[in-house]
């Protein structure tokens, strides 16, 4: 108990930081989580758009001349599978919920 009473200003600061951090998390959870999920979602769309522009001819939509697409290709090798799957996927009503 005495420890608490002997709090140094430094500890106080620490505690305040802890409170602030939890508060931040609370606010994040309550208000921002949706936003950042939205952000991640738009990032995903954005990524797909990116791929479409650069490697559209994989999908039969040529935008860049293939000569230049090849310059982009190495950077997106890991994403190609999921991207193709997503682009070619049939849409259904549940898509609206995520």
């Amino acid at each position, binding site marked *: 108990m005495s420890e608490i009473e002997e709090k140094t200003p430094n500890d106080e600061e620490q505690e305040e930081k802890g409170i602030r951090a939890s508060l931040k998390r609370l606010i994040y959870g309550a208000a921002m989580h949706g936003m*950042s999920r939205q952000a991640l979602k738009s990032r995903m769309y954005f990524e797909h758009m990116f791929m479409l522009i650069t490697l559209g001819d994989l999908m039969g939509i040529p935008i860049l*001349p*293939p000569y230049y697409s090849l310059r982009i290709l*190495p950077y997106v090798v890991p994403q190609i599978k999921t991207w193709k799957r997503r682009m070619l996927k049939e849409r259904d009503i549940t898509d609206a919920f995520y």
Partner: protein
Amino acid sequence: MTKSYSTYTEFFDQKKDIQTLIFAGKGGLGKTTLSAATSIRFSKERMTKTLVFSTDPQASLSDVFEKDVFGKGEIKLEDNLYVTEIDADREIEQYIQSVKQQIFDLYGLDKIPEEIEEYIESAKAEPAMHESATYDAMVSLVSRGEYKLFIFDMPPFGHGVRFVSTADVLDSWIHKITSMRQKAEEYDEVAAKFMGKTKQDIAEDAIMGELTEIRDRLNFFSSMLKDEDRTGFFMVLVPEQMAILDTERAITMFEHFGINISGIIVNQVYPPDLLEREDLSAFLKNKIIMQQKHLETIFERFGDKVLAVIPMYDREPKGIELLTKVAEDLFFWKRPD
């Protein structure tokens, strides 16, 4: 457009800043011969350090200069005269190897994933590949700027026009991507503050860098074609019905993309004074009469765009000596009244 030239020589008198000459037209009309003749004139008479460039897989520059320069880099033929004939197939092969190597290096793979391999192979087979490689090489050469005059003996111009329009399309996409990225960043800020730059971001940065460079190269090419002070864009044709129709279509197509051709050169015209000869065969006579008729049409349709009429020679114009003769015909042609 203030156009005040009516011959090939006048064109060059007007355009002191000329840097690039492009010869376009169907195959077999003499683009290579005219490119070579022009290069000789400039390197010899005007002391201009000149490079003639071709990507013809049939090595036609090697033929007209009578020296094997195919796939050998930039070769000096005479003072101020350099020639390069690119082996596009080999260049493409090397380029694809470097792309594959980059994939190996980035991901430490020992085999390219099947899907990627398929994509690379199909891109390689794409007919536009060859042309793209050509234009890309042109951009590299001209932006390096080691020569005063560049003469391009163009392959038949099909996808080339798409290349020009791609620059604009790509430009607007890059704008879109940039603003989308900014928006995503704003959104992201809360979450991203904890994560810092992700791998994803780094890859995107690299891609953006590449896209911007590609856009710049395409822009360079397209503004080169459109810059009437620095670039001469000539169409070569022969006095034949098909060639006339083709040229008309090509001119319309180029105009659609904002490219004005600088002039037309009519090639392979049988000397009409042969008609005065008594012993002229009926075959030749008919040929000459037909050509003269088409020549009239050419002047009617293209008028003052015609900058020279080059005769048919009794031999193939090859080698420096004969090409010098062609150059004289080209530069000293007189417009008929």
